[in-house]
């Protein structure tokens, strides 16, 4: 049976935690509102960039060897299953592609991805990026990532971006979008229906599409992350208030027990004098 002092200490610390989680929820609610507002125009970039791949029905030929996986997440935790779902998808894809005999490299956007993958799949990591999630992502961020990728010297044939697509305040889904290399797109037969395409234009378009897709996935990812953090902190505050209620009851019971014990001692002491 805990003493009054222990229960008081515990109660105080849980009340502090509840204040912190409540304020974190407010902060992420504000960030989520801003992220959702910025997501609407950003979706246009993504759908526009992917429209060429879909309309021209570009598919990578099966015998291509080099794969690239880009996992988009962030640096900060306390947001539910955001990082682990990306890492799980990445690990599954690495296993599938390695078993099929393809060469895979992974690019991690966000420190959490690096942390989750380094121990077991560290040799697959090509590059990672940090300072993601502190501020809302801009096209400049996507350009930096795309430039580093192009300058890294890894000539991939096919790739995919794995990110958390925002569905609603309470739900997000881990999604995958394809990226193709220049040779795949140039070699696709249906490309001849487009006017005025030459190799230089295609290469420019490919580089720009990479930045576009990264920008779109970054925007979706941050919105999902903020909504997940809001939910997680809300649950934490609710759990904390439950614990506070239970502890307050035990505190009152303990207090009454202490008073009763003192009374018994006094009365039995007085009775012994008679």
């Amino acid at each position, binding site marked *: 049976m805990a003493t009054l002092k222990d229960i008081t200490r515990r109660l105080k610390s849980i009340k502090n935690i509840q204040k912190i989680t409540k304020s974190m929820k407010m902060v992420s609610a504000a960030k989520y509102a801003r992220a959702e507002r910025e997501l609407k125009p950003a979706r246009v970039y993504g759908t526009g960039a992917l429209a060429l791949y879909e309309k021209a029905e570009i598919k990578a030929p099966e015998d291509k060897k080099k794969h690239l996986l880009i996992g988009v997440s962030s640096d900060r935790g306390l947001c539910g299953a955001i990082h682990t779902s990306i890492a799980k998808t990445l690990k599954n894809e690495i296993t599938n592609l390695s078993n099929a005999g393809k060469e895979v490299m992974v690019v991690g956007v966000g420190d959490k991805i690096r942390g989750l993958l380094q121990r077991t799949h*560290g040799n697959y990591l090509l*590059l990672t990026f940090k300072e993601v999630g502190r*501020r809302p992502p*801009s096209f400049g*961020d996507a350009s930096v990532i795309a430039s580093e990728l192009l300058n890294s010297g890894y000539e991939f044939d096919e790739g995919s971006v794995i990110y958390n697509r925002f569905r609603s305040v309470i739900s997000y889904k881990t999604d995958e979008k394809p990226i193709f290399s220049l040779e795949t797109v140039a070699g696709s037969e249906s490309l001849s229906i487009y006017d005025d395409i*030459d190799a230089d234009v295609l290469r420019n378009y490919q580089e*720009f599409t990479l930045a576009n897709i990264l920008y779109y996935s970054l925007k979706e990812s941050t919105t999902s992350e903020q909504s997940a953090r809001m939910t997680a902190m809300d649950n934490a505050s609710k759990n904390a208030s439950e614990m506070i209620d239970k502890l307050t009851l035990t505190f009152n019971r303990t207090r009454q027990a202490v008073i009763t014990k003192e009374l018994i001692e006094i009365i039995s002491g007085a009775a012994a004098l008679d």
Partner: protein
Amino acid sequence: MSSAVVLPFPVALTLPGSGAAAMVAYWRQAGLSYIRYSQICAQVVRAAMKPQYKAEAERAAMATVKTVKPKKE
């Protein structure tokens, strides 16, 4: 993606399957990628904006991401 190669001017690139020849852009010859080229163009546009819109544009375009190269052991 292939890296930029410096070629003598004027340059012709042929698309596989077609017979047409095309010019490589001057910035591609200088070694820039399209992303770097568009970044420079956007910088110039931002520098030419009026002061009341310039600050907002500069803030929106800030890139905060840093690269971490994995250490080879």
